[in-house]
């Protein structure tokens, strides 16, 4: 499974990983804390925002996307776009069914 042939020695120091690790642990703590607050609809938004930040950290640093090729960045972008379409359009249908005919 090789797709970047221009594989470089990823010399990012383990310090980055430690930082990411700590940030992720903090994220877990934060989500648990946030879920105990009563924020109404914002609960899910806050929780998802934290989750996306965490995922972003992992993707960018642990998975080296930040230093990855343009192709990788593009394809990740494309994938999230398509995923967004899937979730968004299905939700559009299911939510708007309740709106009645007009």
């Amino acid at each position, binding site marked *: *499974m090789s*797709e970047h042939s221009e594989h470089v020695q990823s010399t990012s120091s*383990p310090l980055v*990983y*430690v930082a990411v690790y700590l940030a992720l642990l903090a994220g877990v703590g934060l989500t648990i804390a946030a879920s105990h607050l009563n924020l109404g609809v914002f609960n899910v938004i806050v929780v998802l925002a934290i989750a996306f930040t965490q995922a972003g950290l*992992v993707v960018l640093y642990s*998975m080296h996307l930040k230093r990855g090729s343009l192709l990788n960045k593009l394809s990740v972008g494309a994938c999230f776009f398509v995923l967004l379409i899937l*979730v968004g359009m299905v939700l559009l249908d299911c939510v708007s069914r309740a709106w009645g005919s007009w």
Partner: protein
Amino acid sequence: MWLFLLTEVMFFGGLFTVYMIYRNWYYPAFVAGSHQLSIPMGGLNSVLLITSSFTMALAVWFAEARKKSALVLCLILTFVLGVVFLGIKGLEYKEKFEKHHFPGTHYSLQSFINPASDPVAVAAGDKALPQDTAQRTELFFSLYFAMTGMHAMHMIVGMGILAFMIFRARAGAYTAGHTQFVEYFGYYWHFVDIVWIFLFPLLYLINRH
């Protein structure tokens, strides 16, 4: 490898879509279902998986730095953390089976119709749900089992590869410059971690106040 992970994203994406819709429709049932899940266990699992992801990242780094024993140690740590994660998951599953929260013919609504009978529900301060709402908790548990099950399946596959890698790493296979396999496996393991990062708040942490 990235492209392969993207297919995985779409695979789980389908599940998340289903989850989003039902959560939107049957929110009270999802809250009650979520309260049946144990935050300490789920939280501990989060920590475990994040740690294993960390050790995996270190493993990649050690492989590139050509430090064999450190690499093997990190891989073993990753593996052990994975085993513990699955063990805890197994305990959680076992509890659900005993309470008949596994969807299907034996599904029981007791904890939701009559929360007083269930210490977990009492602890969460759940009120009794009307029967029709309670029935929707089955959907929650369906999705819970489907999503965590798929996730666990990915972990089991990953740990199979991990075992193979430990074996090869001890023979010095990855510390001679060919680190790509370790690196790609690392991507896979991080992906599994990311899925859990989303699963944990979405399943365990619905409306805990």
